[in-house]
C-alpha cells in the first residue's frame, strides 16, 4: 500500500484494484482528491464555497468513484491517474449541472429564445440600420438563400442555438433523445455541406466576412444589453 497522497499511476491502479485496507485508503484518498479538484474546477459555474457547489462536488465525486472503479482497465496511462480521474468527475458534474439548468426549458425554447446572457451582450438588429450598405445587404441575401436551400429551419435553428446563444450541445441532444456526439456529427455534416456549397458558388467565406468587417459592426445596428 502506497503512502497516502504519494501514489504514482501504478500504485493508484494497484491499490484501487486490491481489497481491504489498501483499497479503502485509496478510495478515501481519491475521493478527497476529486472533491478538491471539483471545488477548483467548478468555480466558473458556481460560487466557491456555496452549498450548490459543495453538493454537486459531493455527488459527482461519489459517482465518479464508482465509474472509475468500474473502468480502471480503460485508463491508458497517458496522463497522471488523478488527471484522468478529474476528467471523469468533471464530465459527471457538468452533465448534471446542465441537466438541472435546462430541465425546464423546452426544445422549442432552446431553438427560439435568447438564453445566454453572456452571448447576448452584443446583439445586432437583423433589420440593420441606415448604415448597412447595399453591398452588405446583397451579400446577406445571397448567403441567406444558400442557407435556406441547404438547411431545414430546424437544422439552422440548432446551429444558431449552439453557436450564437450558447445552448449546451448536451442539453439540446437530450431534448432530442440522442447522444451529444451524434448531434455534433450531424452539425459537422451540415457545416461541411454549407462550406462545399459556398465554394461551388464561388464564395469564399473569408471575403464574405470581410464585406461585413469593412463596414461597421457586421452591417447592422449594434444593440448592447443594459446591465449585461
Amino acid at each position: 500500500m502506497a503512502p497516502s497522497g504519494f501514489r504514482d499511476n501504478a500504485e493508484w491502479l494497484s491499490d484501487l484494484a486490491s481489497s481491504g485496507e489498501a483499497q479503502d485508503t485509496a478510495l478515501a484518498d481519491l475521493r478527497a482528491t476529486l472533491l478538491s479538484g471539483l471545488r477548483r474546477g467548478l468555480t466558473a459555474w458556481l460560487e466557491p464555497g456555496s452549498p450548490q457547489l459543495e453538493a454537486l462536488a459531493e455527488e459527482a465525486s461519489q459517482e465518479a468513484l464508482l465509474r472509475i472503479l468500474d473502468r480502471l482497465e480503460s485508463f491508458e496511462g497517458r496522463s497522471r491517474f488523478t488527471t484522468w480521474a478529474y476528467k471523469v468527475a468533471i464530465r459527471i458534474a457538468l452533465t448534471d449541472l446542465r441537466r438541472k439548468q435546462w430541465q425546464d426549458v423546452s426544445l422549442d425554447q432552446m431553438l427560439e429564445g435568447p438564453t445566454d446572457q453572456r452571448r447576448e451582450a452584443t446583439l445586432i438588429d437583423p433589420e440593420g440600420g441606415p448604415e448597412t450598405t447595399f453591398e452588405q445587404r446583397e451579400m446577406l441575401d445571397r448567403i441567406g438563400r444558400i442557407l435556406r436551400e441547404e438547411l431545414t429551419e430546424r437544422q439552422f435553428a440548432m446551429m444558431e442555438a449552439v453557436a450564437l446563444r450558447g445552448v449546451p450541445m448536451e442539453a439540446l441532444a437530450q431534448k432530442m433523445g440522442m447522444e451529444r456526439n451524434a448531434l455534433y456529427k450531424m452539425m459537422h455534416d451540415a457545416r461541411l455541406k454549407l462550406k462545399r456549397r459556398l465554394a461551388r458558388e464561388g464564395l469564399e467565406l473569408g471575403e464574405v466576412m470581410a464585406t461585413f468587417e469593412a463596414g461597421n459592426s457586421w452591417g447592422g445596428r449594434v444593440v448592447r444589453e443594459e446591465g449585461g
Partner: protein
Amino acid sequence: MSNLLNRLRALLFSGRPASFAVSPASLAVMGREIASTQGVEYDCNDVYRLLDQFAEAVQRGEDGAPWMPLIHAHLERCPDCRAEFEALMRALRPSEA
C-alpha cells in the same frame, strides 16, 4: 446504430422548405464556424478520450503533438467540451490551501 442515426437524420433534416431569415449576427458567428470546418474533425468522444493528456500538455506549454490542433479546433466550436477543458485546467491548478 446506423439505422437509428438515419432515422434521426430524416426526422431532423426533412420537412417543409425553410423560410427562416439569416441575421448579420448569425452570419458573423456561424460563418466563422463554417469557414473553419474541415472534412475530418475530432468529435466529442475523440476529444474526451484525449482531454486529460491534452490538458497536461497545455499545462506544460507543449503544443507539438499532431493531434493537438484537432482538439483546439473542436474546443473552438463545442461549448460543452470547452467547458470540460476549462474545468479540468482549473482542477489541475495547485490548491491554494
